[in-house]
Structures are given as C-alpha cells and as structure tokens.
C-alpha cells in the first residue's frame, strides 16, 4: 500500500490501517519512553496518550499527508513525555477517550512485550548463523561490555577490523530481519 492511500485509510478510520500504524509506532514510542524515563517500567498510559492525541489530531485535520505521520507522532510523544514529567499523573479520561476512537488501542505493554520477545527469538537464531569471529566480537562488546580497543587487543586484530566486523554483523542481522519482515 502506498503512503498516501494508507493515510487516506487512516483518516477514514480503517481498522487495518490503524492496526498497521500501531504496530509500526508502538515499539518506537516504547523505546523513546524507556530511554527517557529510566527506572520506570509502566509506559502503557503514556503510549495510550500518544495514540489518543494522534488520532484526535488526525480527525481534526492537523496532518497534511503521509509524510507528516512520523514527525507528528514524535511531536506528540515528546509533549506527552513533558507532561508526564510535569504532572506525574495519569489523565483518567484518556482510556475512555481513546477507546471511542480506536478499538485496537489497548494493551500496548503486552503487545510491546510480545514484539520484544519475537525480536529476541529472531536475534538468537540469526546470531547463531553468524561467523564465529563475529559472535566473539558481539559477545565481548555487548555481554562483557568490553571496548572495541580491548577486543582488538585480545583478538590480535586492528581496532578498525573489530569495529567494522561488529557493524557488519549488526547490519547483516538487520538486513535479514528486514528482508524476511521478521520485525
């Protein structure tokens, strides 16, 4: 589906389009909140705030086209985050409000958990397919929290070599996930 057709469907409150939008942006919004609000583990309300504001804005004609979806969503997420910091409280009307607009907008935390679980499974499988040297580098970097220079010294390779292999390994995994549409 092209972007503009997708946008028109969203405006017409097409459930499939809404589902696609939620599927695309929920992980991004979670990632955003998780990295901004450290130590918190419950972002459900905030994510609901974001989608609620998004669909309201869409109904009010605040979006000019498909190209504005991501910036608009990010702007809302930012505003919701600031509100959270200032108010530190939940708007009790949000749940009711969003349900009337988008029936699919519920249980974001669970959907995020499932998405993450799926990603972990995919990663576990793809990592196994990497050459041993790449797994050694990733293991040392991510699990042992070693720096690239340290890994280079340990493996007797150059800093550049280790850095490039690490980046390429991630790119390979990412390309495979995108090619097979695994996430």
């Amino acid at each position, binding site marked *: 589906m092209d972007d503009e057709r997708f946008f028109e469907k969203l405006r017409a409150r097409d459930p499939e389009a809404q589902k696609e939008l939620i599927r695309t942006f929920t992980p*991004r919004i979670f990632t955003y909140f998780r*990295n901004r609000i450290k130590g918190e583990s419950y972002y459900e309300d905030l994510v609901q705030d974001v989608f609620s504001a998004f669909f309201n804005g869409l109904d009010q004609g605040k979006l000019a086209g498909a190209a504005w979806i991501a910036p608009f969503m*990010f702007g809302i997420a*930012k505003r919701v985050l600031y509100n959270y910091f200032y108010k530190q409280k939940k708007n009790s009307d949000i749940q009711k409000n969003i349900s009337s607009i988008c029936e699919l907008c519920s249980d974001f935390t669970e959907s995020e958990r499932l998405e993450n679980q799926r*990603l*972990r499974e995919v*990663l*576990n499988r793809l990592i196994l397919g990497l050459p041993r040297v790449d797994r050694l580098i990733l293991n040392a970097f*991510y699990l042992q929290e070693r720096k690239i220079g340290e890994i280079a010294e340990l493996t007797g390779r150059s800093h550049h070599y280790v850095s490039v292999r690490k980046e390429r390994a991630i790119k390979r995994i990412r390309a495979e996930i995108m090619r097979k549409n695994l996430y």
Partner: protein
Amino acid sequence: MKCHEFQSLIDAYLRETIDEPRREQFEEHFFRCRKCFLGLKINETLQNREVSIPVGERPRRFTLRVLRPAMAMAALFLLVLTSVLLLRRDPPSQRLDELSRFDLPLYHQGEMRGGEESGSLLEQEFSLAMRSFQERDFRSALEILDRPSYTAAGSPKYDFFRAISLLGAGEAERAGEILDGIIQAMDPAYFDEAIYYKGFALLRQGKRRQALAQFEKLANMLSPMAGKARVMVQKLKAL
C-alpha cells in the same frame, strides 16, 4: 539527521552519553526510519543482554552434519563413475573417427590434370567451387560440382573434387562410388589419390578392414601417395 550519523550515535544514545539536542534529533529520526529503528532495537536488545551470544563452534545442522559428507561421497562416486565410463568409451572407434579425418588434396588454380580444359564457363564456375572447397564449405562447392553439366562432362578432375566434396559433406558412400569410377578408369591423373581417398570413404562408412586393404594396396604401389598410405596402414594397425 542522516542514517549513517544515526548509526554512529546508537551506542551513545543507549549509554546516555549523547547530548540533548542530538538526542532529540536521534529520537525524531527513529520515529521516521524503520531501518534505523531496527538497528537501535537490535543494539538495545543485545546491550540489555536479552539474547545469548554463543562463541563456540556453530552447532552443525543435520543437513551439514549428515548430508554434507553424504553429498561429498555421492559426488566422489559420480566422479569415479564418469571417469570409468569415459575410459570405457570405445577408444578404437574414437581413434577411428580421428583417422577418418583427411587433409584436402592440393588444388592449383587452372589445374590441367585429367585432360584438356573444358568449356571456359565450366572452368570459371569450377574455380568458384574450388574456392568454397578450399574453405571446407563443401556444400557450396557441391552446388556447382553436382550440376549435370559437371557430372556429364566426364572429367576426372570434376569427378575427383566432387567426390572429395561429398566425402567432406558426409556423403561417403556417393564419394566412394565416384572414386571407384576414377579408379576403374585408371586415369593416371587422379588414380593414386582416388585410391587414397577411397580408403577414407571406407573408413567413414565404418569399413575398417576394407579401408586398411585399400591403403595397403596403395602403400605397395610405386606411387607418390604410397608414403601417406603407409602412415595410414600403420595407424590403422595400431588401433
């Protein structure tokens, strides 16, 4: 923010060492870019140690562990089988094929062997035919040499080169018949060569013994072709 810049900032973002303005640009970017967001998620998942990264030898899958050696064995078997079949392929017949290839008899423009010059038109066309003949385009040569004017001319020269053209074009039997005619006529101009090439016509028909007899006959004659015939006799006997 461009994707490559985003990639270089992933680690800083996850470790919270990124400065605020860039952090916002970074976040705005991953809202827009699926590829970069996926890169971030992979890094985040790895950094949070939510996946295992085994460093041992890759566990070999069934296909690799069992099928690869089996496939290697099958390939080896096929190789051996092919070699055996190639070796068992009848080498004499292969060599016979090689032996039945012949060098073209020499032809000189305006060749007068075999009698007086025929009509000049025939000779002109004959020259054209011989041009094709020398280029081993026997079919084109035969288009001229097979014309009734040439077959009826009774010239051993036309007959001989028609026979060789037929031999080259794969019509060994017809070639043999024409060569027989030249041999029976005992025209000295093409007699020896006719015997020699008759040998090849027989070889091409798979008549090895008769071919050998033909070459032996020529080899025992006092003939300029005897040497070449003897070589053929030796080769045929060596088969």
